[in-house]
């Protein structure tokens, strides 16, 4: 380029002050924001670990297996809450996974075209209900129903099993698990539906052309193709379930020891923190709760990463594993 071009007054005039600083300014600001996002993530992990430190140094790794939580004697252990988290989440997924897959099949293959959008929207709306309201409903509607109807029925038929022994109670692992089922189903459904919709139409046609019924086509083409995505969706639901603090705290009763019976009260890591963190007396209780939080954070992050890996390995490279709310519209 000739030097003459750069000395042209018209071309030079364009590089005025706003333009000269605008580009680097935008780049800098937005880069800062992006850095902030990453920093916040790291800071969260750091701060929680920092708050937990007194408990970590006092209890060490044994904290995870100590089945005791006694603020008076300052003896704290995570075992009852890890147990509660695992039990409630597992049961919730046991119900939510098949339910969500069935709903997704309905929405993508079976429903009449006119019903698809409305029903899908209604299922998504379930996810929009704030958890404190679900907890309220759990305390005042579902809990009593469990206490009066479901749990006695289970007890009379299956009472010989330890998980169905004991007296029915409105506040129980089972009630909490059901609330979690309600919360995770829309999430799993949303991702699964998205995955089902990526199945190429020509594969489905090939199946029909071979003389498959609709279900056979789903079984032969849609489900195998979507396997990784479905697993990812379920694991995502798991992440949601283990992290739910409020609704669970409202309906699980808050006991601090492990109980075999599902009818019994109990607690989860998230719920325990929600129930006791604010104003916890004693030098060690808050750090112990923060320690619980650290374990919970580790669980949640691992679950998230595993879900991502499974989905990406399964070939859904471009699918954002956590559906953005906009995609869900």
């Amino acid at each position, binding site marked *: 380029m000739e030097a003459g071009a750069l000395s042209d007054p018209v071309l030079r005039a364009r590089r005025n002050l706003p333009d000269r600083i605008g580009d680097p300014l935008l780049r800098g600001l937005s880069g800062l924001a992006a850095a902030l996002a990453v920093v916040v993530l790291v800071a969260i992990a750091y701060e929680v670990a920092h708050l937990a430190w007194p408990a970590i140094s006092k209890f060490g790794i044994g904290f995870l297996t100590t089945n005791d939580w006694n603020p008076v004697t300052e003896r704290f252990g995570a075992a009852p809450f890890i147990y509660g988290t695992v039990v409630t989440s597992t049961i919730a997924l046991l119900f939510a996974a098949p339910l969500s897959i069935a709903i997704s099949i309905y929405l993508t293959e079976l429903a009449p075209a006119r019903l698809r959008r409305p029903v899908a929207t209604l299922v998504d709306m379930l996810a929009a209900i704030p958890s404190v309201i679900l907890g309220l409903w759990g305390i005042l509607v579902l809990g009593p129903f469990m206490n009066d109807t479901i749990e006695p029925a289970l007890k009379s038929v299956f009472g010989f099993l330890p998980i169905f022994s004991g007296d029915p109670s409105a506040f129980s692992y089972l009630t909490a698990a059901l609330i979690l089922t309600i919360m995770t189903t829309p999430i799993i459904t949303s991702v699964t539906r998205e995955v089902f919709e990526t199945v190429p139409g020509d594969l489905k046609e*090939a199946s029909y052309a071979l*003389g498959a019924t609709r279900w*056979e086509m789903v079984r*032969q083409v849609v489900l*195998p193709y979507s396997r990784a995505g479905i697993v990812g969706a379920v694991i995502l639901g798991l992440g949601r379930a283990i992290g739910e603090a409020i609704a669970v705290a409202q309906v699980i009763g808050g006991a601090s020891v492990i109980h075999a019976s599902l009818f019994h009260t109990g607690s989860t890591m998230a719920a325990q923190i929600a129930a006791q963190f604010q104003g916890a007396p004693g030098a060690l209780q808050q750090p112990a709760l923060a320690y619980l939080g650290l374990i919970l954070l580790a669980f949640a992050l691992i679950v998230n990463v595993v879900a991502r890996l499974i989905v990406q390995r399964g070939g859904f490279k471009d699918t954002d594993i956590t559906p953005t709310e906009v995609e869900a519209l």
Partner: protein
Amino acid sequence: MDSSHLNETATVTDPNPESRTSSEAAAGRPGPTISFGAEGGAKSLKPAREDGNVKLEELHAYYGSNHAVRGVSLGFPAGKVTAIIGPSGCGKSTMVRCINRMHEEIPGARAEGKVMLDEIDLYDPRIDIVAVRRSVGMVFQKPNPFPTMSVIDNVTAGLRLTGASRGEMDDRGREALVGAGLWDEVKDRLKGPGTGLSGGQQQRLCIARALAVNPEVMLMDEPCSALDPVATLKIEELIGELKQRVTIVIVTHNMQQAARVADTTAFMLGGELVEVGATDKLFTNPDDDRTEQYVTGKFG
């Protein structure tokens, strides 16, 4: 006739319920009787002709209000290859998809008229659509083997649906692969992924898959348009061999291909059947002016 029987799916009682290979059938075993009604029901019809004759009678097909196929009446004789040619959008694919009732899978699409397969109207409400597709197979424009299945699982995919035994599936799978000219190329990698083959091999895999369920008719919707010339030639050779087993209807936009493989050719335009006749005649001395213009390349 007791009209309560009209609500049953038509079923067949087959005096020889073991699987038939084409060689056994050629040996002249009696075919089954067809009864409409409950198993062993009141009425029965004996098939009167050679198997695999398809006849369209006044077929209309719609996408919503779009009248895509207009009153087509056309016969596809058994044991022959018929090509359907015509410009894009003339309705040839739609018409062919009406034969195995794939057309109605599209929301808002419907068809009227009759599609006769050996004296049975495939659009008879008593007939199960799944059964139709066992008798009328289809190969698509783009090869579509199931990506999650191995080669052999792909071939036997249709058989698995009717609960065939393992041994039977292996036998018929191999037979189909032989029939599709693919056996030698894949016999050492039957358990390998179906999508691990070349484009031409994948298409022959799809042909094998369709053959495995022993259909009487095979529909091919531009089966070579996604393939290279060598693969195309292989499939055209295959068509020549297969026509003894299945009636073949092939949609193609490639007139040279029609000239090479088809006994009869039909020309469609704007949803209507313009002319049908022996391939040689259609290309060298067509009756209709429009046919002549198309085959000489004046449009399309």
